[in-house]
């Protein structure tokens, strides 16, 4: 039986990833902060973090999926951002190096926020560079660059999966989609900030888990997108949220409303090429409405932080089935 180390295993995507791996008959060695009930409780943001100690505790692993990250919502340079950067970049590269020596295949979960402005769909192998002017994209970019330097030095291979905006049961309830769903359940109009014309792409957490699991087990290299079926305006997303709530028994007929004075300060209209993910991972995104229906039921139940995967259908396989 294969074993995969997953950092950030107890978080939002971690729950979905654990389920995807277990469905593939893979033993999950979860790593997360103290108090999270992960198999290994360790603080990856600790300056004293020792990747070799982690490797020794984990024992044999066939793969590592590195997801541990906290989004900094304050300043890009303050103590919180500096702490988060340690977990996102510093600990990621040392974990890669510690596990590369035992032949574990490393998959790094990055973000579309490492991209700059682009014309047309973005090729993950030749991306436009310049991260968003926020610490999260900057820290993930740094991790990718350090991994590239390290892999060349160690003659080791790794893979990067860059998700777009991640939604699904378990996501942060202040984000746009849970807000839209909550409003729809309450019989209110979902409020869309700005013009409603900002283009975005949403990927279901379970779909991201699929890409991470397949990339790791197939020992893929290079960069992949985990994205939705297509990019949409935020207005369309709000409309789909209202439809999803109605489809699972909630109030119907709520059309969104604009709040033009609360426009997002920073937004890039980006589209993401999925060809490589389809071809090499066997990826097929879940239609947005289907994913929103899962999240709508979760929101209806009060958005519980644990047990979020029970709102989702059994994991799919990329044409391979359980290992």
């Amino acid at each position: 039986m294969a074993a995969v180390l997953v950092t950030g295993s107890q978080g939002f995507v971690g729950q979905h990833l654990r389920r995807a791996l277990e469905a593939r008959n893979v033993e999950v060695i979860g790593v997360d902060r103290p108090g999270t009930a992960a198999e290994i409780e360790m603080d990856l943001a600790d300056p004293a973090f020792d990747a070799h100690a982690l490797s020794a505790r984990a024992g044999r692993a066939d793969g590592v999926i590195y997801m541990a990250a906290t989004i900094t919502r304050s300043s890009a340079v303050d103590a919180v951002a500096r702490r988060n950067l340690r977990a996102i970049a510093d600990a990621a590269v040392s974990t890669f190096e510690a596990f590369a020596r035992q032949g574990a295949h490393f998959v790094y979960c990055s973000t579309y926020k490492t991209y700059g402005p682009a014309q047309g769909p973005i090729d993950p192998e030749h991306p436009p560079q310049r991260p968003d002017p926020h610490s999260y994209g900057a820290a993930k970019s740094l991790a990718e660059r350090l991994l590239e330097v390290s892999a060349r030095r160690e003659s080791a291979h790794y893979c990067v999966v860059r998700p777009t905006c991640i939604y699904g049961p378990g996501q942060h309830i202040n984000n746009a989609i849970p807000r839209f769903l909550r409003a729809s359940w309450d019989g209110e109009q979902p409020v869309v900030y700005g013009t409603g014309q900002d283009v975005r792409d949403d990927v279901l957490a379970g779909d991201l888990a699929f890409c991470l699991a397949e990339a790791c087990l197939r020992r893929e290299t290079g960069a992949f997108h985990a994205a939705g079926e297509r990019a949409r305006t935020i207005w369309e997303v709000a409309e789909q949220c209202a439809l999803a709530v109605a489809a699972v028994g909630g109030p119907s007929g709520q059309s969104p409303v604009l709040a033009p004075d609360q426009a997002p300060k920073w937004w890039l209209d980006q589209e993401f090429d999925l060809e490589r993910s389809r071809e090499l991972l066997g990826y097929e995104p879940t239609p947005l409405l289907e994913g929103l229906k899962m999240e709508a039921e979760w929101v209806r139940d009060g958005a519980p932080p644990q047990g979020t995967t029970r709102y989702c259908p059994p994991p799919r396989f990329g044409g391979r089935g359980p290992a």
Partner: protein
Amino acid sequence: MRIVVTGATGHLGRYAVARLVRAGHDVVAVSRSGALPEPPFGEEAALSVQALAVDLGEESAVTALGAGVGRADALVHLAAWHPPATASTDARDRPRLMDDNVLGTMRALDAARTMGVEVVVYASTFEVYGDVSTVPVTEGARVRPLTDYGATKLAGEDHLISFGYEEGVRVVALRFPAIYGPGETTPRALPNFLKAVARGEAPAIFGDGGDLRDQVHARDAARAIELALVGGASGIFNIADGRPHSVADLAAATLAAAGLELHVRRLPREKERRDYHLSIDKARRELGFEPEVELASGMAEQLAWLRAAAEGANGPGGK
């Protein structure tokens, strides 16, 4: 202007502090040691500056810097660490590169939030380009660092840009090539050649020495910093002397500067050939930067300093 300069006792720091003080600015010279920056070789002494000891590699730097400076109009962030070996990718260097170059930059910027600065100038490097094939390379080229140093300096740029966006502060990153001039102690091509010829020996190059390596004299680099501070431009700028120099040409020029009739020694090539030549069109256009120091005269100056240092008349100083 009241200007905070980090890395003030380093090679570029000393030139930058001297230039800003001469231009009438009030300078706070920040360094790990807290020493007063020595004026560069050949320049008049006695710089009137406030010296402040802060180690940006430590978390305590944020409060220490904020409290030690108070209010300031500008931050010139030059403090950084480069591994002893050129183009090093030794994993053991990474913790210090992370602490000094990435977290150190974040700490300096965090402190700058409390100072109320209106502009930040950051010393970046040509090493952010890494695997680049275009000659000359412009600021819009794809960045793909080949070293941890390049990656950490690029992360500094990214955080600088985030800081500028969040705080509404004008930010400028200057991508410098190798900075030479009296006071330079880094063991890399040009200073190694100069040290050899100062001893009366022929400089040695690897392979045919056809690799292009830009140079900029520390005085020109310091002037670019001043132009970035006082002008209104923001963004990323290459700063160099504007001329392509092959390693072989640099070696031959040091022999000429020393008046030695020797031949450059050739050693087997150890590294893949890489050409770096920076386009400085954007800096010319938007900063009004024009390099003033010719390589030949700049080298002669550095050679004179090396010889003087060898005679014990003027210690190498610097970092």
